[in-house]
């Protein structure tokens, strides 16, 4: 780096102002690190009593959160119930896990093929002007606030889905999942498009020279080369889908039901926090359980983002290796 060489040469009689500015810049970088730690510490701090506090354990324990309990009768066993506000509060996270999984699954199944195919079209087949148009349009989709997508799903999409497919419930996992998919498409598309664009054209020309058609080139050369980037997009989109709140809060129906039926209302982890924290007593077991859920979400998305970043790194390493 020529910058560092020059600055090193100019530095020996270092003026104090220069030194001060440098410290200040480093300090602000430190703030960025501190912020992510603060988030972890302060969300985790309120979640910790779930594991340690005896007062919280009188109402809810970790086993009750995760393992099957006996809330029903002999004939109708109810192993998993989320009912934090009742005479005898019941805190099973299983319905919320299942709800999150259902909504996320639909969103990913809907968004992934669409986004990847669209990225293939824009990078491999589309004329230049069309490519330059499609990208900003998808960026506009990313710019729609999630509360607006939630509103759209709540008022319009839900009615249309119910009328068209004759569903029993207006608000359900399918409705929320489709709206969530709209929020995920831009993430997967952008990363897949970046990855495909980064594939050197020399590879495509070599493939064409060997007599491959454009589809064969796209399928057997460009896509495999860009695969880590596409996976990164899927992983990061998955992370977004798990954490997204407003869309599922408005469009999913928010019933904590344990069932695999995708046409029934569901309640996700994020929506539970959003819907219940405002009314909860500060410092109560319920309050701590909601922060516990927040910590889980934070941890899961943290791991997914780390995975995604690793894949992007691998893609970069692979492609720079290919061009040399």
């Amino acid at each position, binding site marked *: 780096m020529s*910058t*560092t060489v020059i*600055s090193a040469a*100019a530095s020996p009689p270092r003026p104090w*102002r*220069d030194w001060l*500015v*440098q410290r200040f*810049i*480093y300090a*602000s*970088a430190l703030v*960025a690190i501190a912020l*992510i730690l*603060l*988030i972890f510490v*302060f*969300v985790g*701090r*309120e979640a910790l009593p779930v594991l340690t506090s005896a007062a919280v354990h009188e109402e809810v324990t970790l086993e009750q959160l995760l393992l099957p309990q006996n809330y029903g009768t002999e004939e109708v066993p109810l192993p998993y119930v989320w009912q934090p506000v009742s005479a005898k509060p019941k805190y099973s996270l299983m319905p919320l896990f299942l709800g999150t999984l259902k909504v996320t699954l639909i969103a990913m199944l809907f968004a992934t*093929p669409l*986004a990847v*195919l*669209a990225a293939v*079209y824009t990078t491999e087949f*589309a004329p230049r002007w069309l490519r330059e148009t*499609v990208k900003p*349009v998808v*960026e*506009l*989709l990313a710019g*729609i*606030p*999630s*509360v*607006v*997508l939630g*509103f*759209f799903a709540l*008022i319009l999409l839900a009615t249309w889905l119910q009328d068209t497919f004759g569903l029993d419930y207006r608000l359900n996992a399918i409705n929320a999942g489709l709206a969530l998919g709209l929020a995920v498409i831009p993430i997967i598309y952008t990363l897949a498009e970046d990855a495909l664009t980064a594939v050197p054209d020399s590879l495509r020309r070599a493939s064409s020279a060997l007599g491959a*058609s*454009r*589809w064969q080139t796209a399928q057997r050369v460009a896509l495999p080369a860009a695969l880590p980037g596409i996976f990164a997009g899927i992983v990061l989109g998955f*992370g*977004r889908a798990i954490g*997204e*709140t*407003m869309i599922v*809060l*408005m469009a999913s129906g928010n019933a904590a039901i344990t069932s695999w039926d995708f046409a029934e209302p569901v309640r996700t982890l*994020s929506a539970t*926090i959003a819907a219940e*924290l405002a009314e909860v007593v500060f410092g109560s077991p319920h309050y701590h359980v*909601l*922060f516990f859920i927040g910590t889980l*979400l934070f941890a899961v*998305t*943290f791991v997914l*983002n780390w995975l*995604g970043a690793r894949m992007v790194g691998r893609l970069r390493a692979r492609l720079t290796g290919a061009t040399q």
Partner: protein
Amino acid sequence: MRWPWLDRSAVLLTALAVLLIVAMLGVVLGSIAYHGWERVTWEFLTAAPRAGMTEGGVFPAIFGTVLLVLLMTVFVGPLGVCVAIYFSEYADRESWFYRWTRQAVNNLAGVPSIVFGLFGLGFFVQFVGRGVDLAFFGGQLTYGQPALIWAALTMAVLTLPVVIVSVEEALRAVPQSYRDASYALGATKSQTVFRAVLPHAFSGVLTGGILAVSRAAGEVAPILFVGAAYFLPHLPTRLNDQFMELGYHIYVLSTQSPDVEATKPLLHATVLVLLALTFLLNLAAIAVRARLRVAARSAR
């Protein structure tokens, strides 16, 4: 070409995916614009809500949103620019500190927005706010409750990566020759960075600011517990006041209104206002960035 039909159907299939995405975007925007545009009048934009949110306008919510994002910009702007300067001008790419900072910013960008809400409540309201009350107000509840300032700070943390990424991109686009020329004239490192490099990255700073404001204007989950209110008779005037906000207004009105049918027309109009706000900001950012790219290309 052995299977030209396969080639053609592949092109058709992928083009269909693009078409479908564009069509869905069109349906979302079109339906909201169609249902809402008639009710977006001057009165709607400048009046307070009346008759249980079925008449009047959304001025307090617009006012609260603008106040929130302006205050947020004051916090996130300087910090974001400084971190971007660190990345682009000061960082030693091999150092652990660089890797940690990069990792931290990447992770910050991926934290779910509802977790920022929990953080805002747990850190800013309960910890900092309480602390301020104990230190300056004799323990009286003043800042230790949901308030405008805490919402703005929470949003600032959320939008920090947005600002950093776009300012850093602009700083990197400034040609190395500018720095070399500055050093050749005897300028120090800090003089070079702040007088020769940063002014040329101005459009990047602008883009970052616009994108951050657009993002913050559309986020609701982080401010659910940190200061947004459904209805307030007065506009917020102090930092520890609560405030009305467009996104939050839409959420409450569409999910908890006693009479959804009566509020629907105004609700559509409110959504349209929020959409128009974020879209104009996004378009502005795209335009500024496009000009930046052209300028960077011609400078090389």
